[in-house]
């Protein structure tokens, strides 16, 4: 599993990692809600994930089961991709942020000072 996940594939996998095994229909509903993808988009990405071996699709109702864990994905992915993984809260974001290549520790600290100190 050396290949990196595309961002859309990552979005799909994140849903499955969070919720466990789901029907394909349910995945489309969740992503419709979260991002606003229409169901065809999600189906296309699911199909890609199956082709690449990230998940398994079973009858009935196209039950989708992740074949790789988040940790495995993290290990095989480059540092850049770890940055893509952050979710939710700003603390988590900033910890992911520090590894980001755009801004380094010092810059982030300075920017935060600027934001917090201005009236």
């Amino acid at each position: 599993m050396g290949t990196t996940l595309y961002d859309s594939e990552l979005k799909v996998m994140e849903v499955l990692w969070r919720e466990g095994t789901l029907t394909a229909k349910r995945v489309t509903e969740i992503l419709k809600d979260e991002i606003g993808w229409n169901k065809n988009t999600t189906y296309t990405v699911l199909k890609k994930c199956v082709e690449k071996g990230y998940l398994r699709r079973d009858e009935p109702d196209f039950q989708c089961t992740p074949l790789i864990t988040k940790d495995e994905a993290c290990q095989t992915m480059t540092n850049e991709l770890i940055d893509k993984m952050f979710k939710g809260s700003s603390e988590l974001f900033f910890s992911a942020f520090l590894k980001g290549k755009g801004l380094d520790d010092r810059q982030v600290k300075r920017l935060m000072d600027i934001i917090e100190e201005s009236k």
Partner: protein
Amino acid sequence: MLSIRFDMPLWLMGIYGGIMAICVVLLRILLGKRLPKRLFPILWSVVLVRLFIPFSISSPFSLHIPLLGEMDGRLFGSISILQQQTTETYEAASDSSIEELSLLLNSANETEQTYTSPATAESAPSFPFISISWVGTLWAAGVIASAVWLALCWSKCQKVLENSASISNQTAEKVLQKCRITADVYTCDRISSPLAVGLGHPGIYLPTRMDFSNYEMLTHIIAHEAMHIKYRDNWLKTVMLAALCLHWYNPLIWWMARELSRDLESACDEATLSVLEGDNRKNYAYSLMAMAALECRGSLIYSSFSKTEVERRIKGVMAYKRAGKFLISLTIMLAIGTSAVFATGGTTFYSSGLCWGIQADGCYMIADVVLNRDLELGEFAQGRANSTVYRVLAESAGQEKGRTQLQKEIVGALSREFGVEPGAFQAHCYLSIPREVILEQYAQAGITIKGDRYYYDGTLVHSITDREEGNASYITASSWQDGGVDLYILRDETGRIKEDGVQAYLWYRF
């Protein structure tokens, strides 16, 4: 009062555009923190008009850039006279022609230099002789190369955006509705910062990897991109790119492109904050940081949300205040004023000579008049000007008016004749006293003439210089091998010999 033409050369448009760009950035440095940021994209569009349309408006407020002297009509006039003379010399004396020719050239150069500054006199003749053809070819090649390069960039972007998924996100739709913008929203795997793309039907492209559960950030991003669409920033950028193709050799225009795209971001940050309710500065600044963390990448082609200068933008965001009515009206006035200055500030070359060597009987002054700015003076302008100046000189005959006075009167008369402000004309008067008057004046001062030699109090004069005080051009200047006295004569500006204006020094031959 206004005179408009459409013949400015492209390179001059580029130079003026560059100067304007520097002015806009200076204005931003000086007042940028206090003024609404939308002012700057407006000023940039004015600069873009300058870069594309070869208009030249001359007004009483136009700047007089010395460069304009280069293409002076007088200069060309003297060159053609020079050519005439040289051909005549060739015909007249073919054997000793070379020496005479160089003499003639020298004297011609000297007379030019007395009327124009040395720098223009030196550079001017070389200018018309630059071969236009290879410069033009090189320029055209550059235009094509830049256009091809931009087209390649564009098709690369199109390829990247091909694999995008259209989305219908409720948060995004709500924001777009509030901004009164219709635009399709897409997610794309291969971009790292949000983009507003397209001219006719713009779309907003979001990086798939961004956090869609962070509604606040999503709101900020969509609102920002919606502002790009609302203010047609992509149009402005497209025009900017076209200007880059035309003026590809001008580094100031490239610099301008960068400054313009920065100012667009700042202006959209400001517009976004004004659309959002309440004080969102802090949260918006954090959104900016979050997007910068995804990846810092700038793109000249498309409006993008995060650029390398997050810090600058965050500072700008934190300094944001809602502008009051006073500030807005001040800004509108500033925009109009600056545009007017930009429009009429720089003019193209014009022929500045109007009258040349006008003289009237009884008046000891010769007058020249040049135009200070490009003016349409109507039909028979030259003839009317000549007779106006002649009238002033003739009326002044025998009145011993000073140069300053006379010049003022000439300018005033021309201003009335043509209905233009006096500042548009510049008169130069210089002494020209008839020989018999000079001799009369000399006689009164105790100088007599016998044959071709002067005598002062009966002593043979060794040398004589006669000039106006403070003026280097001589009315008389001669010297001989023998004689016993050196004479220095000074006149006032009316041409009269000053009291104690004749000074004599004994001269001994060693």
